[in-house]
């Protein structure tokens, strides 16, 4: 069996799904391959759902702004309720160094036109009723950021992409990428081969392995974060709360109340837990609960329902790899999202669609210039 497409995407996840949607919308014949049984079963399902544009670099800000516009208009555009809420993000400060760092960053973010401000402790108490006030110095608040359900998004993207003609091949991993004369020709799977002049590696945590199929070194190393979700309760807070104080065993943690009223939370282990093991550990619950209850004591009575681990496909500098891979014509990378694939996804997908149909904007060219896979990796993004 064989079939011919314009574009083949490896990975029906946070990035591959919106990419397929926007490509199909642009009239491109697109096929998506994934080893899992249904959409979003890689790391998309592990995302907690936060969506913000308040990053510290030009490209991610632009991509996420486009994402937010899309998430916010998702229902009008597609008819699907994905649980979008524009609750904002607040980074809280309980120490002077963190206050200084956040205030400096706010000034930089404002220069990008982001709606974000430093607010005093009274405002934080208003945003997060019941928050611990001892030592609270204030924090940032960016009201345009928000959240939506990754599970609902994956379902909706797949359905809408299919409606527009995209084809999905589940339980069918890409096992070989056919390259002839330096040009992509197609892919093989255990079931068949498929022809296409363009291949997009949107394989998330498996981007390195998919890269190796064509002899590419894709500098993506997953590390593991642990997350959880509670029972639903009546709405008591709107924003995503981020606490970047280090503590033994962890860097930052963050949580919000989703559209169902459930609190979804996540912690960043320190030192990072490298690798692809995503089985739940016994360390997570006591560690995260202590920090969350200390920050917001009322959570003590909130029941945790489920925990899981997800992989952050990290790059050396904490920023995504986006654009043409050097050396192979027709091979594109949309990978290394560093745990932000879900919020970057629609922006990245829309950009890819424009890029592959010759419609890219000057802003797209800027983003690709910053995120091109063959860049020199320096430093680390401030809020990673």
């Amino acid at each position, binding site marked *: 069996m064989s079939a011919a497409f314009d574009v083949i995407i490896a990975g029906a996840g946070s990035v591959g799904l919106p990419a397929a949607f926007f490509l199909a919308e642009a009239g491109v014949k697109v096929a998506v391959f994934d080893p899992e049984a249904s959409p979003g*079963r890689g790391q998309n399902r592990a995302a907690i759902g936060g969506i913000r544009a308040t990053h510290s670099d030009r490209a991610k800000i632009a991509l996420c702004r486009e994402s937010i516009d899309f998430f916010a208009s998702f229902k009008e555009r597609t008819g699907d309720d994905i649980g979008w809420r524009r609750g904002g993000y607040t980074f809280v400060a309980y120490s002077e160094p963190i206050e200084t760092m956040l205030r400096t960053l706010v000034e930089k973010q404002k220069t990008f036109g982001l709606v974000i401000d430093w607010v005093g402790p009274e405002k934080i108490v208003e945003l997060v*009723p019941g928050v611990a006030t001892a030592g609270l110095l204030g924090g940032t608040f960016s009201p345009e950021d928000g959240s939506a359900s990754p599970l609902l998004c994956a379902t909706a993207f797949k359905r809408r992409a299919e409606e527009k003609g995209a084809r999905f091949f589940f339980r069918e991993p890409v096992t070989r990428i056919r390259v002839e004369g330096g040009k992509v020709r197609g892919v093989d799977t255990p079931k068949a081969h498929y022809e296409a002049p363009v291949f997009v590696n949107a394989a998330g945590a498996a981007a390195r392995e998919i890269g190796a199929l064509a002899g590419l070194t894709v500098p993506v190393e997953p590390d593991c974060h642990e997350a959880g979700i509670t029972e639903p309760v009546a709405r008591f807070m709107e924003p995503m709360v981020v606490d970047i104080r280090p503590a033994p065993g962890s860097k930052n943690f963050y949580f919000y109340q989703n559209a169902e009223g459930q609190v979804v939370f996540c912690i960043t282990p320190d030192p990072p837990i490298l690798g692809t093991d995503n089985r739940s550990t016994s360390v997570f619950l006591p560690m995260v609960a202590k920090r969350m209850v*200390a920050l917001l004591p009322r959570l003590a009575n909130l029941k945790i329902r*489920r*925990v899981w681990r997800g992989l952050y496909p990290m790059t050396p500098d904490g920023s995504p790899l986006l654009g043409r891979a050097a050396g192979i014509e027709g091979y594109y990378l949309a990978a290394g999202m560093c745990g932000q694939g879900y919020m970057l996804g629609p922006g990245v997908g829309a950009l890819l669609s424009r890029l592959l149909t010759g419609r890219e904007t000057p802003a797209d060219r800027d983003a690709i210039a910053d995120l091109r896979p063959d860049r020199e990796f320096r430093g680390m993004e401030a809020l990673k």
Partner: protein
Amino acid sequence: MVERRVKRHPILPPAATPAEVPFYWNGERLLARPGEVISSALFAAGIHVFGHHPRDGAPLGIFCANGQCAQCTVIANGVAVKSCMVPVTKDMVVESCDRAPKLPVLGEAPAIGETKTLDTEVLVIGAGPAGLSAAIELGKLGVRTLVVDDKDRPGGKLVLQTHKFFGSIEDTRAGTRGIDIAAELAAEIAALPSVTLWLESTAIGVFSDGRVGIVRRNAYFLVDPDALLVAAGAREKQIPFPGHTLPGVYGAGAFQTLLNRDLVKPCGRLFILGGGNVGLIAAYHALQADLEVVGLAEALPAVGGYEVHADKIRRLGVPIFTSHTVLAAHGTEHVESVTIAEVDREFRVVPGTEKTFAVDTLLVAVGLSPLDEFARDAVAFGMKVEAAGDAAEIAEASAATFGGRIAALKLARRLGLPVADVPREWEEKLAVLKARPGAPVPHAFEPPDLPVYPVIRCTQEIPCNPCSTVCSKHAIDLDGDPILGRPRFAGPECSGCAKCVAICPGLAITMVDGRKDPENPIVTVPFELAGERVAKGSLVLATGARGEPLGLFPVVDVKNRKAADRCLLVMLRAPKATAPLIAGIRVQDPAEMRPLEEALAGETADDVVICRCEHVTAGNIRKAVREGTRDLNEMKAKLRVCMGACCGKNCPELIEKIFRAEGVDPGKTTPNTRRPLFVEVPFGVFAGGSKE
């Protein structure tokens, strides 16, 4: 207000303490017994509806009574809690939960503490028959063993079992009541220095680092065992029919918990679906508590449980409808009636056979599923693990006690302890105890030419032999097999001691004694309901083996022997020809259990709720299947099945049935990913650590 508490019970002792703890339900002052859980205190006040589902406003109440779901959530002193797990405290303000509960701001910061990690050689999850038996075996070997159980007393479901157990006296304490077996096993545990028993301690997950999270009261511990023995029991299967989520529809386990643990009457008139041992015994337990059992339906052409259990309730006056199923439970806030109908061999409803009964409760006893997640996770994480009892394979408690011992020895060997092989005869005995009952044989009995003799109505092969064991004349023969054979009186003589009558767990033996008056012998009938029903000098309606009425006969005496252990020996005088036919005493009239004039119709099948946490209907699930959904995880993403408060424990089995009904090969579907937690736990427990 009528207090709905069990005031008299033939087997269970009366409640030790009166209801004197005041609390408030939606502003009304009520009284609870000290230590009583909220749900039982509410049931004692006749309150069955605890709230309404935020999605569709459907009434909610008790479902599992076991801490496993959240259907019984109420607001207690401002905080949403599972009412079946939280005891009433003095002046507690309890309110119904009709929407997403509020999360109160706390006046003071809660305690933050460290979580201790404890080492043990073996961790046993579950202190039921299998877990306790395993721990006893491990304790005898000196193995450091920690047993955890989420309830406040050891014994698991044994503490709900007022009837005498089957099996053999030597191996499984046959003839002893479940409640007393629990006490005996607990006493043995207490005498073993290497075994520690933690009650009110819930295992909430097995983690990939080999640790098991335990919530002990409000403290959190991690246990790092060298090996794990899972004896966590089973959960009750559900069957979705219109109205199955109404308050008043309960699993038999929930019902027995309310009735036999908490001595609360959950209902007045009930119907039972399921003719396995669980359903049959639940009917018996209801009758013991003076509740009316209107009928029992079983979809198969014969009951699946022991015939002796079925006959026991037939004689008491319970109609058994074989080849029948429940079509619907009706009611708005609570069950008001139930419609049943006949089914053919393919389980298709036979039109025109619908019957509606006015009842306030329907018990669903359609089987059990092993609670296998702990063992499955432990295996996946490379731990040394064994499962025993219902967690390994659904069978009788007698098999669980034996299975626990075997699993303990296997685990000890895997730990490298110098333990002999599991004796082959143990494995053989376990296989016998797990054996399905044999085909029923019609009761045929020719009275022997003796002045006194027993009549044994044990109509199928089941693993049980105490009648033979206690017979001082060795006159009861087991047809060749030491335990599975059907007992019969082989003679040559009977001493008239009636020990066999008193010990038979199936109440299947009577004794005919014509020594004083050969023409009007005395028939000794075992009776385990309230003694007031069979007062000396009164007339009682005696029935034959299958409950057929034989006439009114005088009670000439009632013996309450210590050795008979609360089984009354009721002595009736009857004519010589009738005496050997008398098998039991009727307490309710099946003729009065008539259906309503007109049968009611149910909702359409599409409206039936499959996921009771998120109220996802069969119609929506079927639609997703027809759209091509084959991955249960995708179904979850689309519809929120497996996402609710029961932590995905209940609906996957029901969804699998829909897959099958839609012609989808279950082998082509992807199961939902299971993750901790096993039950929901508040943040404060993890944050507070191991401080108690």
